[in-house]
Structure formats: structure tokens, C-alpha cells
């Protein structure tokens, strides 16, 4: 009979190991009373901890821990923030006379998360499309730029990412209920291996938006960035480091008026 390491015996006590290994350990313990005593002690200790706190899980839940009530309150709070944020933005907008800002913004905490989520779903849907990946092809780049700039009411250039090995495929307009104007532009690029990168660009959601966030979503990484004029989420099946390098190129080109203030 083969011996087991102490780690394996302890893992057995904690309910681990494969069924075959467990049978082996049981045989080993039957022949080694000292090891068996130690393992039994560990199991008794664990049983005692479960006896102490296990019953908590069966206690009736207080109302404040009701998930659905909390979800409702969260939605109400967000609406509350929206009202305050909209009022603040109207004041700023009057001061600056900046047209699109007057539409009011949802600057609630979490806006960046919602935009990233929207960007990633749009990426997932359209990056898989072989023939209809874009609405306006890159061959019509000038029209695309003026069309999207118009719809987003901000000056939008189409970044050139050939230096990063990415070919511009084109773009499309998407609904974006979380931002003023309710529209987002998606620009799509493709690398030599056929992997696709999208930029999801919206007017800036407001002054309280986080400047920078990275989300790792399984196969894809999303990198969010916002300034006073636009927000942009870059989604691609790349590592965060590679995406950051591309982001520097994107942000200096995307909105020429604010260019260089991207820093990580």
C-alpha cells in the first residue's frame, strides 16, 4: 500500500481528493492508527465549527437582506442620483453653453459598469457576424465619421490602428439608454488572426464618471476610459497589457480636441 503525504491526508479530511484516492487513504488510515487519530481530530474540529455556526443559515432572513427589496431600492437610489446629477449638469451646461450637456446625464456610481456591460454585449453580438459585422464599411470612412459625429453630437475621428496590427472594418450606431442622446458608436477592427476589437464610444456620461476601469470578462478584456467629452470602452480577446498599449493609440486619435490626457 502506498503512503500518502500529510497534505493529502488533510485534504481527505476536508472532503477533497478523487473517489479512488479517498478509498486509498481510507485503507492507509486503517493501517496507520496514529495518522488516523490526527485526521479524526481534524474532522472533529471541523464538525465542531459547523455545529457552532451551521444553524445560522437556517435562521429566518431579516427584511434588509431581501435581495429583491435591495434591488428595488438600488434602482430608486439611482433615479435619485440621476435627478441630482441632471440638475448639476444643467447648471454647468448653462454656464458653458454647451449644447449636448443640457440633455442631462446619469452620473450615478455604476455608470461606467453599465457602459462596459453594454459595450461588451454589443461586442459579443457583432464581433461574431462575418458578413454584417458593420453597418457602414471602412471604405466609406469619411461618411462614417461625419455620420457618427453628428449622431453623437461630438467630433469623432476614426482611429487608425494599423500600427497595432489592426485593420479598420467599419462602424455602426447603437442605442445607449444610459447616456445623454441615447446613442453609441461601435467601431470594429480585425487583426491578422481574425480576432476582433471594438470601440464603443458615447458622449461623456458626466463629471462623476470614473476615468478609467478595466474588466476581465473571461475571454475578453474590456478597458473603459472617459474624459469630459466622450467615454470609450475597448473590448477585445487580448490581455489587459496589450489592450492598454492599444488604448494609448486610440485615445490620442479618437477625439483630437482632448487627445493627450490619457495616462495610466
Amino acid at each position, binding site marked *: 500500500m502506498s503512503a500518502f503525504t500529510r497534505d493529502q491526508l488533510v485534504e481527505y479530511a476536508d472532503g*477533497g481528493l478523487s473517489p479512488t484516492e479517498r478509498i486509498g487513504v481510507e485503507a492507509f488510515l486503517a493501517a496507520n492508527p496514529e495518522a488516523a487519530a490526527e485526521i479524526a481530530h481534524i474532522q472533529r474540529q471541523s464538525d465542531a*465549527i459547523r455545529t457552532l455556526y451551521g444553524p445560522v443559515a437556517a435562521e429566518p*432572513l431579516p427584511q434588509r*437582506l431581501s435581495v429583491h427589496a435591495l434591488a428595488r431600492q438600488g434602482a430608486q437610489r439611482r433615479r435619485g442620483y440621476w435627478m441630482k446629477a441632471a440638475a448639476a449638469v444643467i447648471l454647468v451646461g448653462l454656464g458653458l453653453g454647451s449644447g449636448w450637456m443640457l440633455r442631462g446625464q446619469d452620473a450615478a456610481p455604476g455608470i461606467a459598469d453599465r457602459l462596459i*456591460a453594454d459595450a*461588451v454585449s454589443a461586442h459579443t453580438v457583432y464581433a461574431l457576424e462575418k458578413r454584417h459585422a458593420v453597418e457602414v464599411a471602412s471604405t466609406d470612412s469619411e461618411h462614417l465619421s461625419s455620420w457618427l459625429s453628428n449622431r453623437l453630437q461630438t467630433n469623432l475621428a476614426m482611429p487608425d490602428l494599423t500600427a497595432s496590427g489592426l485593420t479598420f472594418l467599419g462602424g455602426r450606431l447603437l442605442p445607449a439608454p444610459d447616456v445623454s442622446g441615447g446613442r453609441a458608436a461601435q467601431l470594429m477592427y480585425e487583426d491578422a488572426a481574425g480576432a476582433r476589437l471594438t470601440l464603443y464610444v458615447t458622449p461623456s456620461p458626466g463629471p462623476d464618471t470614473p476615468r478609467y476601469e478595466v474588466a476581465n470578462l473571461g475571454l475578453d478584456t474590456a478597458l473603459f476610459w472617459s474624459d469630459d467629452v466622450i467615454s470609450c470602452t475597448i473590448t477585445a480577446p487580448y490581455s489587459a497589457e496589450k489592450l492598454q498599449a492599444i488604448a494609448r493609440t486610440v485615445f490620442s486619435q479618437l477625439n483630437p480636441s482632448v487627445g493627450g490626457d490619457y495616462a495610466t
Partner: protein
Amino acid sequence: MPDILHEIEAAVPALRRYARALTRDVASADDLVQDCLERAISKRALFRSQGPVRAWLFTILVNLHRNALRGARRRSDTVDLGSVPEPSVPAPQPGHMALAELARAIETLPLDQKEALLLVTLEGLPYKDAADILNIPIGTLMSRLGRARATLKTLTGTQTEPHLRTVK
């Protein structure tokens, strides 16, 4: 997409149990769970295919608890006498006395050991899951478990020991 709120809801009893064992206080444990749920609910749009909802919730809870402790330490420089280990007293009967003694002993464990021990014993999580939640390698998890168990064994004395020789 399955309703993530249902999955969050299903994990609440386990989160309460874990929080109660971490804090040993009904009100602060439920505060912790409430903070955790609020965070999870507001971030749920981001949670799409990043693994099991339950592990994600435990990660949030552990982080909130650590933050709360850091905040509490900053606010107070005094030593909490209740947290100083009491010498173990042989209990006349192994039942409730031994359990109370065990609870006090768990409280004296360093936080990283307590987090690991409770995930594995109380929550019954596989090592891999517990290590992922704590963001540490499995080897580190196992050494924390080992140290926690050795401390508990010392602090709870021989009363809960069986009449068998111990192994060095």
C-alpha cells in the same frame, strides 16, 4: 441569461453563516452581508460568465470585511482586551463548554487563517474554490489551514482530544 438575482438570493444564508463566524456578532455580520448584497446587485451587469456567482459573492464579502477592519483599526489605537486569547480552561463537560471555547479560540486566529479555515470547514468549499476566493495559491491556503488548526488545538486544550496518541 438566468436571473442572477435568484442566484444571489440562494447564496444569502451561506453568506450570513460565514459573516457570523467571521465577526461573531449578529448585527455586524448582517451589516456586512447587506453591504455585500448591495455591491453585488449594483455590479451585477458586469457579472456575466466570470464563474460561479457564489464565489464572486464570497470574494466581495471577504474584501468588505477586510476594509471594515482596516477602518476600525484606523479609528482606534486601543487594544481590545476581548481579543486577547484566554488561557484554556478544562471544561467539565465536552458539550457546550468546549464549543464556546472553540469559538473564542477561532476569534484569536489571524484574519487570513480564519478566512481560510471557515471557507473550508464551515462552507465546505474545495481548496481550489477557497483559494480563488482569497486570491492565493492552494499551497498558501493549506499552510494557513494547518497553522489555524494547530492554534485551535493548542487553545482548546486536551478536553476535546480523544484518548489516542497524537502524531508529531
